[in-house]
Protein backbone atom coordinates (compact mmCIF):
# COMPACT_ATOMS: atom_id res chain seq x y z
CA UNK A 1 0.00 0.00 0.00
CA UNK A 2 1.40 3.33 -1.07
CA UNK A 3 -0.78 6.15 0.16
CA UNK A 4 -1.29 9.24 -1.93
CA UNK A 5 -0.37 12.08 0.37
CA UNK A 6 0.23 14.70 -2.27
CA UNK A 7 -1.81 17.86 -2.53
CA UNK A 8 -5.00 17.28 -4.51
CA UNK A 9 -3.93 19.63 -7.25
CA UNK A 10 -0.75 17.73 -7.97
CA UNK A 11 -1.46 14.04 -8.15
CA UNK A 12 1.58 11.87 -8.21
CA UNK A 13 0.08 8.49 -7.41
CA UNK A 14 1.75 5.21 -6.72
CA UNK A 15 4.41 5.37 -9.38
CA UNK A 16 5.56 8.76 -8.15
CA UNK A 17 5.68 7.42 -4.65
CA UNK A 18 7.78 4.48 -5.78
CA UNK A 19 10.21 6.88 -7.38
CA UNK A 20 10.60 8.63 -4.07
CA UNK A 21 11.57 5.41 -2.32
CA UNK A 22 13.67 3.80 -5.02
CA UNK A 23 13.32 0.35 -6.53
CA UNK A 24 15.20 -1.62 -3.90
CA UNK A 25 13.48 -0.19 -0.89
CA UNK A 26 10.03 -1.75 -0.95
CA UNK A 27 8.84 -1.81 2.63
CA UNK A 28 7.46 -5.00 4.15
CA UNK A 29 3.67 -4.85 4.50
CA UNK A 30 3.60 -4.79 8.28
CA UNK A 31 5.95 -1.81 8.47
CA UNK A 32 4.01 1.45 8.67
CA UNK A 33 6.95 3.77 9.25
CA UNK A 34 10.53 3.13 8.29
CA UNK A 35 12.70 5.80 9.89
CA UNK A 36 16.20 6.19 8.51
CA UNK A 37 18.96 8.38 9.89
CA UNK A 38 16.48 10.89 11.17
CA UNK A 39 17.86 14.11 12.64
CA UNK A 40 15.95 17.18 13.75
CA UNK A 41 17.44 20.68 13.94
CA UNK A 42 16.09 23.84 15.50
CA UNK A 43 18.15 26.40 13.65
CA UNK A 44 21.78 25.45 14.23
CA UNK A 45 20.93 23.29 17.22
CA UNK A 46 20.71 19.58 16.52
CA UNK A 47 17.99 18.25 18.83
CA UNK A 48 18.04 14.61 17.76
CA UNK A 49 20.36 12.54 15.61
CA UNK A 50 20.66 9.09 14.02
CA UNK A 51 17.22 7.68 14.65
CA UNK A 52 16.63 4.41 12.78
CA UNK A 53 13.57 2.33 13.55
CA UNK A 54 10.59 0.57 12.01
CA UNK A 55 7.06 0.99 13.34
CA UNK A 56 4.85 -2.02 12.79
CA UNK A 57 1.18 -2.12 11.95
CA UNK A 58 -1.33 -2.80 14.74
CA UNK A 59 1.33 -2.49 17.36
CA UNK A 60 1.84 0.02 20.13
CA UNK A 61 5.31 1.51 19.97
CA UNK A 62 6.49 3.39 23.04
CA UNK A 63 9.18 6.08 23.19
CA UNK A 64 10.82 6.42 26.58
CA UNK A 65 13.76 8.38 27.91
CA UNK A 66 14.72 11.24 30.21
CA UNK A 67 13.52 14.80 29.67
CA UNK A 68 15.15 16.46 26.71
CA UNK A 69 16.08 13.20 24.99
CA UNK A 70 14.08 14.13 21.90
CA UNK A 71 11.34 11.52 22.11
CA UNK A 72 8.52 14.05 21.68
CA UNK A 73 10.48 15.78 18.93
CA UNK A 74 10.74 12.49 17.06
CA UNK A 75 7.03 11.76 17.61
CA UNK A 76 6.14 15.12 16.10
CA UNK A 77 8.06 14.23 12.95
CA UNK A 78 5.53 11.50 12.16
CA UNK A 79 2.72 13.96 11.42
CA UNK A 80 5.01 16.82 10.42
CA UNK A 81 4.08 18.88 13.46
CA UNK A 82 7.63 20.21 13.54
CA UNK A 83 6.81 22.07 10.32
CA UNK A 84 4.82 24.44 12.49
CA UNK A 85 7.93 25.46 14.44
CA UNK A 86 9.98 28.15 12.82
CA UNK A 87 13.56 27.11 12.08
CA UNK A 88 12.84 23.42 12.57
CA UNK A 89 14.42 21.17 9.95
CA UNK A 90 14.30 17.44 9.47
CA UNK A 91 17.14 15.41 7.96
CA UNK A 92 16.99 11.77 6.99
CA UNK A 93 13.78 10.07 6.02
CA UNK A 94 10.52 8.83 7.44
CA UNK A 95 8.97 6.44 4.99
CA UNK A 96 5.24 5.95 5.50
CA UNK A 97 4.34 2.76 3.63
CA UNK A 98 7.38 3.47 1.52
CA UNK A 99 6.50 7.12 0.84
CA UNK A 100 8.86 9.78 2.12
CA UNK A 101 6.77 12.02 4.40
CA UNK A 102 9.19 14.89 3.86
CA UNK A 103 9.15 14.74 0.09
CA UNK A 104 8.35 18.26 -1.18
CA UNK A 105 5.30 16.93 -3.00
CA UNK A 106 3.70 15.68 0.19
CA UNK A 107 0.92 17.78 1.69
CA UNK A 108 1.25 17.98 5.50
CA UNK A 109 -2.51 18.36 5.84
CA UNK A 110 -3.02 15.04 4.07
CA UNK A 111 -0.44 13.51 6.40
CA UNK A 112 -2.33 14.69 9.47
CA UNK A 113 -5.57 13.18 8.18
CA UNK A 114 -3.97 9.76 8.27
CA UNK A 115 -1.85 10.30 11.33
CA UNK A 116 -3.76 11.73 14.28
CA UNK A 117 -2.30 13.21 17.44
CA UNK A 118 -3.43 13.13 21.07
CA UNK A 119 -1.63 15.53 23.39
CA UNK A 120 -0.41 15.45 26.96
CA UNK A 121 -3.07 17.76 28.30
CA UNK A 122 -6.59 17.07 27.08
CA UNK A 123 -7.37 19.93 24.72
CA UNK A 124 -11.01 19.76 23.67
CA UNK A 125 -12.33 22.76 21.77
CA UNK A 126 -14.67 24.98 23.81
CA UNK A 127 -17.57 23.54 21.90
CA UNK A 128 -20.11 20.81 22.45
CA UNK A 129 -19.07 17.18 22.75
CA UNK A 130 -20.71 16.50 19.39
CA UNK A 131 -18.97 19.39 17.64
CA UNK A 132 -15.60 18.33 18.98
CA UNK A 133 -15.89 14.90 17.37
CA UNK A 134 -17.56 16.23 14.21
CA UNK A 135 -14.88 18.89 13.75
CA UNK A 136 -12.47 16.82 11.66
CA UNK A 137 -15.06 15.17 9.40
CA UNK A 138 -16.72 18.57 8.78
CA UNK A 139 -13.37 20.10 7.90
CA UNK A 140 -12.91 17.29 5.40
CA UNK A 141 -16.23 18.25 3.83
CA UNK A 142 -18.23 15.35 5.23
CA UNK A 143 -21.86 16.26 5.79
CA UNK A 144 -23.66 12.95 5.37
CA UNK A 145 -23.99 10.46 8.20
CA UNK A 146 -22.24 12.79 10.60
CA UNK A 147 -24.31 11.47 13.51
CA UNK A 148 -23.15 7.95 12.76
CA UNK A 149 -19.55 9.05 12.46
CA UNK A 150 -19.71 10.82 15.82
CA UNK A 151 -21.37 7.88 17.54
CA UNK A 152 -18.90 5.39 16.09
CA UNK A 153 -15.90 7.48 17.14
CA UNK A 154 -17.28 7.95 20.66
CA UNK A 155 -17.98 4.23 20.94
CA UNK A 156 -14.48 3.38 19.74
CA UNK A 157 -13.10 5.75 22.36
CA UNK A 158 -15.18 4.05 25.07
CA UNK A 159 -16.99 7.29 25.85
CA UNK A 160 -20.39 6.87 24.19
CA UNK A 161 -22.29 5.46 27.17
CA UNK A 162 -21.10 8.30 29.38
CA UNK A 163 -22.00 11.16 27.01
CA UNK A 164 -24.78 9.93 24.72
CA UNK A 165 -27.43 11.89 26.64
CA UNK A 166 -25.50 15.13 26.66
CA UNK A 167 -23.86 15.41 23.26
CA UNK A 168 -24.93 19.06 22.99
CA UNK A 169 -23.28 20.07 26.22
CA UNK A 170 -19.87 21.68 26.46
CA UNK A 171 -16.88 19.35 26.34
CA UNK A 172 -15.30 21.48 29.02
CA UNK A 173 -17.69 19.97 31.58
CA UNK A 174 -16.19 16.51 31.19
CA UNK A 175 -13.63 15.09 33.61
CA UNK A 176 -9.95 15.03 32.60
CA UNK A 177 -10.08 11.36 31.67
CA UNK A 178 -13.29 11.87 29.68
CA UNK A 179 -11.77 14.87 27.93
CA UNK A 180 -8.77 12.78 26.91
CA UNK A 181 -11.01 10.04 25.55
CA UNK A 182 -12.95 12.76 23.70
CA UNK A 183 -9.67 13.89 22.14
CA UNK A 184 -9.04 10.30 21.10
CA UNK A 185 -12.56 10.16 19.62
CA UNK A 186 -11.85 13.40 17.79
CA UNK A 187 -8.61 11.95 16.43
CA UNK A 188 -10.22 8.74 15.18
CA UNK A 189 -13.32 10.45 13.74
CA UNK A 190 -11.34 11.26 10.60
CA UNK A 191 -10.41 7.57 10.34
CA UNK A 192 -6.66 7.85 10.49
CA UNK A 193 -4.37 4.85 10.26
CA UNK A 194 -1.98 5.96 12.97
CA UNK A 195 -2.54 7.64 16.33
CA UNK A 196 0.34 9.50 17.96
CA UNK A 197 0.04 10.04 21.70
CA UNK A 198 2.29 12.45 23.54
CA UNK A 199 2.15 11.49 27.23
CA UNK A 200 -1.62 11.04 27.03
CA UNK A 201 -2.02 10.02 30.67
CA UNK A 202 0.37 12.34 32.46
CA UNK A 203 -2.43 14.68 33.52
CA UNK A 204 -4.78 11.86 34.53
CA UNK A 205 -5.40 9.97 37.76
CA UNK A 206 -4.66 6.19 37.92
CA UNK A 207 -8.26 5.13 37.17
CA UNK A 208 -8.51 7.39 34.11
CA UNK A 209 -5.03 6.22 33.09
CA UNK A 210 -6.12 2.59 33.28
CA UNK A 211 -9.13 3.36 31.05
CA UNK A 212 -6.91 4.99 28.42
CA UNK A 213 -4.50 2.05 28.58
CA UNK A 214 -7.37 -0.42 28.11
CA UNK A 215 -8.62 1.72 25.25
CA UNK A 216 -5.21 1.62 23.58
CA UNK A 217 -5.31 -2.18 23.59
CA UNK A 218 -8.73 -2.08 21.91
CA UNK A 219 -7.66 0.55 19.39
CA UNK A 220 -4.54 -1.22 18.24
CA UNK A 221 -6.70 -3.81 16.50
CA UNK A 222 -7.64 -1.11 14.00
CA UNK A 223 -4.86 1.43 14.37
CA UNK A 224 -1.14 1.71 14.80
CA UNK A 225 -0.22 3.64 17.92
CA UNK A 226 2.93 5.51 18.89
CA UNK A 227 3.13 6.79 22.43
CA UNK A 228 5.60 8.96 24.28
CA UNK A 229 5.51 8.25 27.99
CA UNK A 230 7.49 9.19 31.07
CA UNK A 231 5.96 6.25 32.87
CA UNK A 232 8.16 3.22 32.22
CA UNK A 233 5.65 0.86 33.78
CA UNK A 234 3.11 2.19 31.31
CA UNK A 235 5.47 1.45 28.42
CA UNK A 236 6.04 -2.03 29.82
CA UNK A 237 2.30 -2.59 30.27
CA UNK A 238 0.89 -1.33 27.01
CA UNK A 239 3.51 -1.42 24.27
CA UNK A 240 4.71 -4.10 21.90
CA UNK A 241 7.97 -2.35 21.11
CA UNK A 242 9.94 0.23 23.01
CA UNK A 243 12.48 2.77 21.84
CA UNK A 244 14.80 4.20 24.47
CA UNK A 245 16.26 7.65 23.83
CA UNK A 246 18.83 9.47 25.87
CA UNK A 247 20.80 12.71 25.70
CA UNK A 248 24.38 13.19 24.77
CA UNK A 249 26.21 16.27 25.96
CA UNK A 250 28.29 17.98 23.30
CA UNK A 251 31.16 19.28 25.38
CA UNK A 252 32.31 21.88 22.82
CA UNK A 253 29.00 23.64 22.43
CA UNK A 254 27.58 22.65 25.83
CA UNK A 255 24.38 21.51 24.14
CA UNK A 256 22.48 18.27 24.35
CA UNK A 257 21.42 16.03 21.50
CA UNK A 258 18.92 13.21 21.74
CA UNK A 259 19.96 9.80 20.45
CA UNK A 260 18.13 6.52 20.03
CA UNK A 261 19.98 4.02 22.23
CA UNK A 262 17.98 0.86 21.73
CA UNK A 263 14.82 -0.28 20.00
CA UNK A 264 13.40 -3.74 20.51
CA UNK A 265 10.38 -5.75 21.58
CA UNK A 266 9.13 -4.45 24.90
CA UNK A 267 9.44 -7.75 26.75
CA UNK A 268 13.08 -7.94 25.68
CA UNK A 269 13.73 -4.31 26.63
CA UNK A 270 12.32 -4.79 30.11
CA UNK A 271 13.73 -8.25 30.82
CA UNK A 272 17.11 -8.25 29.12
CA UNK A 273 18.02 -4.98 27.35
CA UNK A 274 21.12 -5.12 25.16
CA UNK A 275 22.54 -1.71 26.02
CA UNK A 276 23.83 -0.85 29.47
CA UNK A 277 22.41 2.67 29.19
CA UNK A 278 18.92 1.21 28.75
CA UNK A 279 19.44 -1.08 31.71
CA UNK A 280 20.60 1.82 33.87
CA UNK A 281 17.66 3.99 32.88
CA UNK A 282 14.85 1.49 33.27
CA UNK A 283 16.18 0.20 36.57
CA UNK A 284 16.37 3.75 37.89
CA UNK A 285 20.17 3.93 38.06
CA UNK A 286 20.48 6.50 35.33
CA UNK A 287 23.45 8.82 35.53
Amino acid at each position, binding site marked *: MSPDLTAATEPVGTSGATDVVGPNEVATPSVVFDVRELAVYYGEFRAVRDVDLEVHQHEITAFIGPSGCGKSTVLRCFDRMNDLIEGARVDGRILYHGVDLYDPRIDPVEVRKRIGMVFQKPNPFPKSIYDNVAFGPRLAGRKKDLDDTVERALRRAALWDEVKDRLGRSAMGLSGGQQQRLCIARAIAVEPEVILMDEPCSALDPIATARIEDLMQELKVDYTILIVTHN*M*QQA*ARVSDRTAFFTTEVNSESDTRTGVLVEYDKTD*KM*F*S*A*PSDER*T*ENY*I*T*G*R*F*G
Partner: protein
Amino acid sequence: MRQHYTDELEQLALQVELMGVLVDENVERMQTVLETGDLTSAEAAIACDDRIDDMNVSLMERCYELLRREAPVAADLRLVVSVLRVTAELERIGDLSLRIAKLAPEHHLLVASPAAFGILGAMADHAVMQYREALRAWSTFDLAIAERVAAEPPVPLAGRTLIEALLDYEGHDAVMVSLRTMVAGQALDRIADHAAVLGARIRYLITGDPDHLAAEVR
Protein backbone atom coordinates in the same frame (compact mmCIF):
# COMPACT_ATOMS: atom_id res chain seq x y z
CA MET B 1 20.66 6.49 42.58
CA ARG B 2 18.15 4.22 44.32
CA GLN B 3 20.98 3.22 46.63
CA HIS B 4 18.70 1.62 49.20
CA TYR B 5 17.09 -0.55 46.53
CA THR B 6 20.47 -1.51 45.08
CA ASP B 7 21.67 -2.49 48.55
CA GLU B 8 18.56 -4.58 49.08
CA LEU B 9 19.15 -6.51 45.87
CA GLU B 10 22.75 -7.17 46.88
CA GLN B 11 21.55 -8.35 50.28
CA LEU B 12 19.01 -10.59 48.62
CA ALA B 13 21.66 -12.32 46.51
CA LEU B 14 23.84 -12.68 49.59
CA GLN B 15 21.02 -14.21 51.64
CA VAL B 16 20.49 -16.81 48.93
CA GLU B 17 24.17 -17.66 49.17
CA LEU B 18 23.81 -18.04 52.95
CA MET B 19 20.85 -20.33 52.43
CA GLY B 20 23.00 -22.25 49.95
CA VAL B 21 25.72 -22.58 52.59
CA LEU B 22 23.20 -23.99 55.08
CA VAL B 23 22.09 -26.49 52.44
CA ASP B 24 25.76 -27.27 51.83
CA GLU B 25 26.18 -28.10 55.51
CA ASN B 26 23.33 -30.58 55.24
CA VAL B 27 24.70 -32.02 52.01
CA GLU B 28 27.93 -32.61 53.92
CA ARG B 29 26.05 -34.19 56.85
CA MET B 30 24.19 -36.36 54.37
CA GLN B 31 27.51 -37.63 53.05
CA THR B 32 28.79 -38.28 56.58
CA VAL B 33 25.64 -40.24 57.45
CA LEU B 34 25.94 -42.19 54.24
CA GLU B 35 29.54 -43.09 55.02
CA THR B 36 29.31 -43.71 58.77
CA GLY B 37 25.68 -43.74 59.90
CA ASP B 38 26.52 -41.04 62.45
CA LEU B 39 23.32 -40.28 64.38
CA THR B 40 24.54 -36.93 65.71
CA SER B 41 25.03 -35.66 62.16
CA ALA B 42 21.53 -36.86 61.30
CA GLU B 43 20.02 -34.95 64.23
CA ALA B 44 21.96 -31.83 63.32
CA ALA B 45 20.67 -32.15 59.75
CA ILE B 46 17.05 -32.26 60.95
CA ALA B 47 17.56 -29.11 63.01
CA CYS B 48 19.36 -27.36 60.16
CA ASP B 49 16.55 -28.19 57.73
CA ASP B 50 14.15 -26.12 59.83
CA ARG B 51 16.49 -23.14 59.48
CA ILE B 52 16.67 -23.72 55.72
CA ASP B 53 12.87 -23.73 55.51
CA ASP B 54 12.66 -20.53 57.56
CA MET B 55 15.14 -18.84 55.26
CA ASN B 56 13.20 -20.01 52.26
CA VAL B 57 10.02 -18.40 53.60
CA SER B 58 11.83 -15.21 54.57
CA LEU B 59 13.41 -14.91 51.11
CA MET B 60 10.07 -15.47 49.41
CA GLU B 61 8.55 -12.69 51.51
CA ARG B 62 11.38 -10.34 50.56
CA CYS B 63 10.87 -11.11 46.88
CA TYR B 64 7.13 -10.40 47.09
CA GLU B 65 7.92 -7.19 48.92
CA LEU B 66 10.46 -6.08 46.31
CA LEU B 67 8.14 -6.94 43.43
CA ARG B 68 5.29 -5.04 45.04
CA ARG B 69 7.29 -2.00 46.05
CA GLU B 70 9.94 -1.58 43.37
CA ALA B 71 8.45 -3.23 40.25
CA PRO B 72 11.94 -4.34 39.21
CA VAL B 73 12.83 -4.66 35.53
CA ALA B 74 15.67 -6.02 33.41
CA ALA B 75 18.53 -7.63 35.38
CA ASP B 76 16.82 -6.66 38.66
CA LEU B 77 13.67 -8.49 37.62
CA ARG B 78 15.66 -11.53 36.56
CA LEU B 79 17.43 -11.51 39.90
CA VAL B 80 14.24 -11.39 41.98
CA VAL B 81 12.49 -14.06 39.93
CA SER B 82 15.66 -16.16 39.93
CA VAL B 83 15.86 -15.93 43.70
CA LEU B 84 12.37 -17.43 43.93
CA ARG B 85 13.27 -20.21 41.55
CA VAL B 86 16.74 -20.88 42.98
CA THR B 87 15.58 -21.00 46.60
CA ALA B 88 12.94 -23.56 45.60
CA GLU B 89 15.72 -25.76 44.19
CA LEU B 90 17.89 -25.23 47.28
CA GLU B 91 15.02 -26.16 49.54
CA ARG B 92 14.47 -29.32 47.52
CA ILE B 93 18.14 -30.29 47.66
CA GLY B 94 17.98 -29.77 51.42
CA ASP B 95 14.96 -32.08 51.70
CA LEU B 96 16.61 -34.78 49.60
CA SER B 97 19.74 -34.62 51.76
CA LEU B 98 17.57 -34.95 54.83
CA ARG B 99 15.87 -38.01 53.36
CA ILE B 100 19.26 -39.75 53.29
CA ALA B 101 20.29 -38.41 56.72
CA LYS B 102 17.15 -39.94 58.17
CA LEU B 103 18.41 -43.37 57.07
CA ALA B 104 21.14 -43.16 59.77
CA PRO B 105 19.48 -45.67 62.18
CA GLU B 106 19.34 -48.16 59.31
CA HIS B 107 22.88 -47.56 58.10
CA HIS B 108 23.70 -51.26 58.45
CA LEU B 109 21.28 -51.92 55.58
CA LEU B 110 23.13 -49.47 53.33
CA VAL B 111 26.49 -51.13 53.87
CA ALA B 112 25.17 -54.70 53.61
CA SER B 113 25.96 -54.92 49.91
CA PRO B 114 29.53 -53.63 49.46
CA ALA B 115 29.01 -53.31 45.71
CA ALA B 116 25.85 -51.21 46.08
CA PHE B 117 27.43 -49.16 48.87
CA GLY B 118 30.39 -48.37 46.63
CA ILE B 119 28.07 -47.11 43.90
CA LEU B 120 26.16 -44.98 46.42
CA GLY B 121 29.47 -43.43 47.49
CA ALA B 122 30.36 -42.52 43.91
CA MET B 123 26.88 -41.07 43.32
CA ALA B 124 27.20 -39.02 46.50
CA ASP B 125 30.58 -37.65 45.41
CA HIS B 126 29.08 -36.62 42.08
CA ALA B 127 26.00 -35.04 43.66
CA VAL B 128 28.05 -33.08 46.22
CA MET B 129 30.48 -31.85 43.57
CA GLN B 130 27.61 -30.76 41.30
CA TYR B 131 25.88 -28.93 44.12
CA ARG B 132 29.05 -27.11 45.21
CA GLU B 133 29.70 -26.01 41.64
CA ALA B 134 26.13 -24.69 41.40
CA LEU B 135 26.59 -22.76 44.63
CA ARG B 136 29.86 -21.36 43.32
CA ALA B 137 28.07 -20.28 40.12
CA TRP B 138 25.60 -18.33 42.27
CA SER B 139 28.17 -16.64 44.47
CA THR B 140 30.36 -15.62 41.53
CA PHE B 141 27.66 -15.22 38.84
CA ASP B 142 30.19 -16.90 36.59
CA LEU B 143 28.59 -17.93 33.30
CA ALA B 144 31.19 -20.60 32.50
CA ILE B 145 30.59 -22.40 35.79
CA ALA B 146 26.81 -22.14 35.44
CA GLU B 147 26.94 -23.57 31.93
CA ARG B 148 29.19 -26.42 33.01
CA VAL B 149 26.85 -27.39 35.86
CA ALA B 150 23.79 -27.08 33.61
CA ALA B 151 25.38 -29.30 30.98
CA GLU B 152 26.56 -32.01 33.38
CA PRO B 153 24.55 -35.10 32.50
CA PRO B 154 23.16 -37.18 35.37
CA VAL B 155 25.19 -40.36 35.87
CA PRO B 156 23.19 -42.46 33.42
CA LEU B 157 24.24 -45.92 34.42
CA ALA B 158 24.40 -45.37 38.18
CA GLY B 159 20.74 -46.30 38.71
CA ARG B 160 21.02 -49.46 36.66
CA THR B 161 24.31 -50.62 38.14
CA LEU B 162 22.84 -49.98 41.56
CA ILE B 163 19.92 -52.28 40.74
CA GLU B 164 22.29 -54.88 39.33
CA ALA B 165 24.39 -54.81 42.51
CA LEU B 166 21.25 -55.21 44.62
CA LEU B 167 20.02 -58.13 42.51
CA ASP B 168 23.33 -59.82 43.13
CA TYR B 169 22.95 -59.42 46.87
CA GLU B 170 21.58 -62.57 48.49
CA GLY B 171 21.41 -61.77 52.22
CA HIS B 172 18.30 -62.56 54.31
CA ASP B 173 17.59 -58.84 54.53
CA ALA B 174 17.77 -58.37 50.76
CA VAL B 175 14.35 -56.68 50.48
CA MET B 176 15.05 -54.08 53.18
CA VAL B 177 18.58 -53.52 51.88
CA SER B 178 17.23 -52.92 48.38
CA LEU B 179 14.46 -50.59 49.54
CA ARG B 180 16.73 -48.39 51.65
CA THR B 181 19.54 -48.35 49.12
CA MET B 182 17.14 -47.29 46.39
CA VAL B 183 15.78 -44.46 48.56
CA ALA B 184 19.33 -43.17 48.98
CA GLY B 185 20.25 -43.74 45.33
CA GLN B 186 17.22 -41.94 43.99
CA ALA B 187 17.74 -39.01 46.35
CA LEU B 188 21.38 -38.67 45.24
CA ASP B 189 20.31 -38.81 41.60
CA ARG B 190 17.74 -36.07 42.24
CA ILE B 191 20.26 -33.86 44.08
CA ALA B 192 22.60 -33.94 41.08
CA ASP B 193 19.66 -33.19 38.81
CA HIS B 194 18.48 -30.22 40.90
CA ALA B 195 22.05 -28.91 40.92
CA ALA B 196 22.05 -28.99 37.11
CA VAL B 197 18.72 -27.10 37.13
CA LEU B 198 20.34 -24.52 39.42
CA GLY B 199 23.09 -24.09 36.84
CA ALA B 200 20.50 -23.51 34.12
CA ARG B 201 18.58 -21.00 36.25
CA ILE B 202 21.77 -19.07 37.01
CA ARG B 203 22.77 -19.13 33.35
CA TYR B 204 19.50 -17.40 32.38
CA LEU B 205 19.88 -14.91 35.21
CA ILE B 206 23.28 -13.93 33.81
CA THR B 207 22.45 -13.86 30.09
CA GLY B 208 18.74 -13.00 29.96
CA ASP B 209 18.69 -15.01 26.73
CA PRO B 210 15.14 -16.32 26.07
CA ASP B 211 16.67 -19.48 24.54
CA HIS B 212 18.29 -20.20 27.89
CA LEU B 213 14.93 -19.83 29.61
CA ALA B 214 13.35 -22.25 27.14
CA ALA B 215 16.27 -24.68 27.58
CA GLU B 216 15.43 -24.98 31.28
CA VAL B 217 12.32 -26.97 30.40
CA ARG B 218 13.91 -30.24 29.57
